[in-house]
């Protein structure tokens, strides 16, 4: 993606804290889970930004806060120059026509009492985009776009497999003709051979409709496959953001290095030669992140400054952002 291009969505210093209360009667604010703690990135028109990170790193919360499914604690998100967080709910619903989301669990995200036809038609009704015959035609068109036949219209979700349900979820997301689709772990619950089908479908739709994706997942090799650029999250912060091949082949941040080395490679020859960087211990709790750099407790290169001062998220070379005090040394 060329840097001259105008970003579709700009996220600046986004924070989302979930308060922790203690006490049974007099609820006292005892602290915060800092799920997202100041992240900034752009997504350009027509690109796929992959957002990866381990469980609890805050990647899903970023996706949800960004589109105001959660109200942000702090920060700014602009879509084509419009500040989303200052919009009144009426104006926000206009914006929602441009953003769709695909959820992780295709079993929980489809209402079991609704037919497939009414699930896909619902966004059309809410946004008053089509009615009557036109609506029916649009639903059929959407179904064929995701590789399902019109026979599905009167069926219920339980009649479909995980992969097919995910296709239904995609059809529903496409119904409003969105510009941006937030894909929240859309393939994590699917089998390998079905994952490939869904990824191919998402890529085909992107080419056909010029969609922009924020692709959130923890399967690193799949994210690399589908993304143009990748952002790596750890404990509520973005550690590194760069072109997908840069991140994969020349990771700068020590956490990214360890993460990339841990990806299992389905090739016994490469697997023999590769060395894993084994990280000690676990990710700290987001309720009590360490002082200084969030990764300092597990970083093999950590020096005094890392435990004291938070590193700045900065561009260390063209279009390659890293949050590490010693990023330049790892280049």
């Amino acid at each position, binding site marked *: 993606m060329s840097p001259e291009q105008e970003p579709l969505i700009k996220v600046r210093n986004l924070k989302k804290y979930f308060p922790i209360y203690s006490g049974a009667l007099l609820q006292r604010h005892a602290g915060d889970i800092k799920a997202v703690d100041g992240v900034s990135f752009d997504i350009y028109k027509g690109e796929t930004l992959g957002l990866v990170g*381990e469980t609890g790193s805050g990647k899903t919360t970023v996706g949800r806060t960004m589109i105001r499914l959660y109200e942000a604690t702090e920060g700014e998100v602009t879509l084509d120059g419009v500040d989303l967080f200052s919009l009144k709910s009426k104006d926000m619903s206009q914006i929602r026509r441009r953003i769709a989301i695909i959820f992780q669990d295709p079993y929980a995200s489809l209402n079991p009492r609704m037919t497939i036809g009414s699930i896909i038609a619902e966004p059309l009704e809410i946004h008053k985009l089509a009615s009557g015959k036109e609506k029916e035609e649009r639903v059929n068109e959407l179904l064929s776009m995701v590789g399902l036949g019109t026979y599905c219209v009167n069926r219920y979700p339980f009649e479909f497999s995980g992969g097919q349900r995910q296709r239904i979820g995609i059809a529903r997301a496409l119904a409003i003709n969105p510009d941006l689709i937030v894909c929240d772990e859309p393939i994590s619950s699917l*089998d390998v*051979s079905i994952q490939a089908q869904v990824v*191919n479908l998402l890529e085909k739709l992107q080419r056909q409709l010029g969609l922009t994706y924020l692709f959130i997942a923890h399967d690193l090799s*799949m994210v690399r496959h589908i993304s143009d650029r990748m952002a790596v999250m750890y404990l509520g912060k973005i550690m590194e953001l760069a072109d997908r091949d840069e991140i994969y082949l020349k990771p700068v941040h020590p956490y990214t290095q360890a993460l990339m080395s841990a990806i*299992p490679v*389905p090739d016994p*020859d490469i697997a023999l030669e590769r060395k894993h960087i084994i*990280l000690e211990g*676990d990710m700290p709790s987001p309720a009590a992140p360490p002082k200084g750099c969030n990764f300092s407790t597990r970083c093999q290169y950590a020096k005094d400054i890392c435990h004291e001062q938070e590193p700045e998220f900065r561009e260390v070379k063209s279009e390659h952002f890293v949050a590490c005090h010693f990023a330049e040394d790892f280049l």
Partner: protein
Amino acid sequence: MEKFLQIKDLTTRFYTEDGVVYAVNGVSYTLEEGEILGVVGESGCGKTVHALSIMGLIPSPPGKIEKGEVIFDGRDLLQASQGELRDIRGSQIAMVFQDPMTSLNPVFTVGFQITEALSIHKGMGNNEAREVAGDLLEQVGIPGAHSRLDDYPHQFSGGMRQRAMIAMALSCDPKLLIADEPTTALDVTIQAQIVDLVKHLQQDLGMAVMWITHDLGVIAEIAQKINVMYAGYIVERGSVRNIFKRTRHPYTMGLLGSLPRLDEAPGTELLAIPGLPPDLLSLPKGCPFVYRCMYAVDRCLEEMPPLEQTDEKDHTVACWRWKEIISKK
């Protein structure tokens, strides 16, 4: 090396209200002492059910082992009594399950759960068992192991729980460790820790490992031999190199094609397998992969191909057309 686990024609079915589920359909193979075998396949391919059948853990009813033999150390486990099985489970064959949260008992301390096995199988006293349990936790890399024996499972993280499960499995020096998707619920960096740990433990202790997973990447790193399963059949079996480099079965080819390659050019499309796995309630008469296979011919519909030797030693495949397929490639 001795063939210490020999499985012959193992067939397990479940009799449900909807009909008969053909979960495992005549699986035969041998496992040598100290070998790491990878069993790979997608959900519902019978990889877990076949392992539970070996351990005698199939709930009956509805499950039933229809036929077959599981010869372990010279005796058929399928003929063994519950009492004999209980002696073997834990002490000779140990199992690690997928979800470490549900396989540890939340109301007992981790230490208690490890010492339980030691006192049952080895007759150790309380203090001795505690000491050994602490050493085991240390061996699997839990920091401050001895002081964490009194922790409850909820005080452990996911990776630590899986380590505790492995410690428990290793407590009686089993000859065979069956690990059923042990890293599926874990993050990649934790997965790398666990894979590394099991590899080292296997080298140090010389036990055989059966590693069940759907992740071909993990299999490539850990296994020496691989069974590829599909709809209750082994469709291909061979050394890790043969399976990945001289793939012979169209299903294995499809699985490998579904994965993104590291050296792919941007914009490459994945070679997905079309369609869905077959319904185990009504398997086709012939090869179960027939409806998704681009090479299928009439014969595939009618007859299930037997596992036969390929052009390589130590490599078998169940496909009528494997020779034609490789000559075309």
